[in-house]
């Protein structure tokens, strides 16, 4: 098996918890559960023009999931829904088929060791999926 999953960068991300907290007046929201672990993420998003302007999430989950949620909180503001969809796809590609990350998403590299543990892929993907789901409800409202 590959390098250890819990690198300092992941712990730092999780601790920083970028974007954590409740967001007022969201344009879109989502709640995703992972019943196997009892994990849950509530995520809200606000848009300005064609880009995400703010993200707020409440994440009760493992370190990996919290780190991923933090990365979403850090990177989503200022980016378009399409760019964030690319991020989710790049992450999934890296985890499941060792795909090379695009230059714009090198930040996802910290999760590379998780590829060796398919049972944890869901933990890392959950916040990205929650963002997609929230963006979808926002799009639905327009």
């Amino acid at each position: 098996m590959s390098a250890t999953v819990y690198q300092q960068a992941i712990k730092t991300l999780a601790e920083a918890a970028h974007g954590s907290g409740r967001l007022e007046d969201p344009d879109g929201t989502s709640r995703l559960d992972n019943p196997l672990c009892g994990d849950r993420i509530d995520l809200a998003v606000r848009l300005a023009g064609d880009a995400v302007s703010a993200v707020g999430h409440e994440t009760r989950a493992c370190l990996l999931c919290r780190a991923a949620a933090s990365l979403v909180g850090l990177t989503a503001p200022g980016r378009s829904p399409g760019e964030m969809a690319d991020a989710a796809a790049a992450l999934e590609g890296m985890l499941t088929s060792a795909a090379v990350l695009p230059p714009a998403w090198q930040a996802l590299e910290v999760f590379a060791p998780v590829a060796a543990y398919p049972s944890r892929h869901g933990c890392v993907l959950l916040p990205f999926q929650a963002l997609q789901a929230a963006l979808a409800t926002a799009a639905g409202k327009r």
Partner: protein
Amino acid sequence: MSIAELRGQFPFYATANPCHYLDNAATSQIHRQALTAMAGQESCRANVHRSPYRLAEASSHAYGEARAQVARFVNAAAADEVVFTSGATAALNLVAYSFGETLQAGDEVLISAAEHHSNFVPWLRLRQRTGIRLRVLPLLPDGRIATASLAEMVTERCRLIAVTHCSNVTGAVTDVHAVVAAARAVGAKVLLDGAQQVQHGPVDVQKLGADFYAFSSHKCFGPTGVGVLWTRGGVLERLPPFLTGGGMVGLVSLETLSFASPPARFEAGTPPVAQAVGLGAAAAWMMTLPWAEVHRVESALLARLLDGLATFPTVRLIGPADLEARLPIVSFEVRGIHPHDVCQVLGEREVALRGGNHCAQPLFAALGSAGATRASIALYNDAADVDALLDGLEHALKVLS
């Protein structure tokens, strides 16, 4: 393809004393790779409900790989269309309970008189529970399902046509095209019982056009204890679960209950992991075979058997006498002699046959027969097996009359 080569891949033929095994419709012998894969998985195992240690990841991976292998074997559009069950019977019950729960009194389910009890009794029971109307397609004199009757038997209330792909008594292969067309015309779904079909070659569920396809591992060279329900993508998503328990839920409390997505929703509890892995290996092996050649060999044996039986004036065939749209499953009556007595005498000569009504009482009633002796051929059988049967039958007639 040489039979001797194939035989060498079956542990059965390496045993001290293999018989002339012609009871393949009851269960086939297991392929070496299926046995090895199953034993390997069992030797060093973890549960598949996703834990992050090496052994658990390996078990989950092997189980997922088995699903992919079976999906390729039936040419499913996606691996998640494959649900592992404990056998064909369990797969058929799954549909009868789960899809059955979406039916109302007066809705119609159309089956045929050729069905194995496993695709007959679940619908009788559903009728008792919910008041559906159960209609039964009649048979032609040679045992084929009379698909010409579809026009009159498929009504606007028809919700499902559930028929066997191939009869376990007559070997007749159903005209699936006609069945699917009739179902589509009224928006009904189609379930095919493939328990006797897949051991004679991979099927293409997309081409067949059915919505559900069920079969058992132990009849197609895999282990006992596992079976498959393939379902067309999107259909399972709208169905309630059948068995419930660990691994198939979302949230559980006394007040709330939600379910996982398919296929998990339909695989409650610890699945037959090692058996699925064994079946996956059997399916992967079958994918490597030259099937045109296998069919040629099986058909030649079938012809040899039918020709041989035709020389006995007291033998009456139950099923098609030609080679068209049929598989090498051959049932016959011997006038004045009970099938169990035939099987007994043949068994004493190491020819393995089966006698009785073969879990198909409605078929025997429809064809006016009290029971039959059955010989069923698989890809490892040879002319010596057929000849031993024919010689033995001659002997049986002497002993028993």
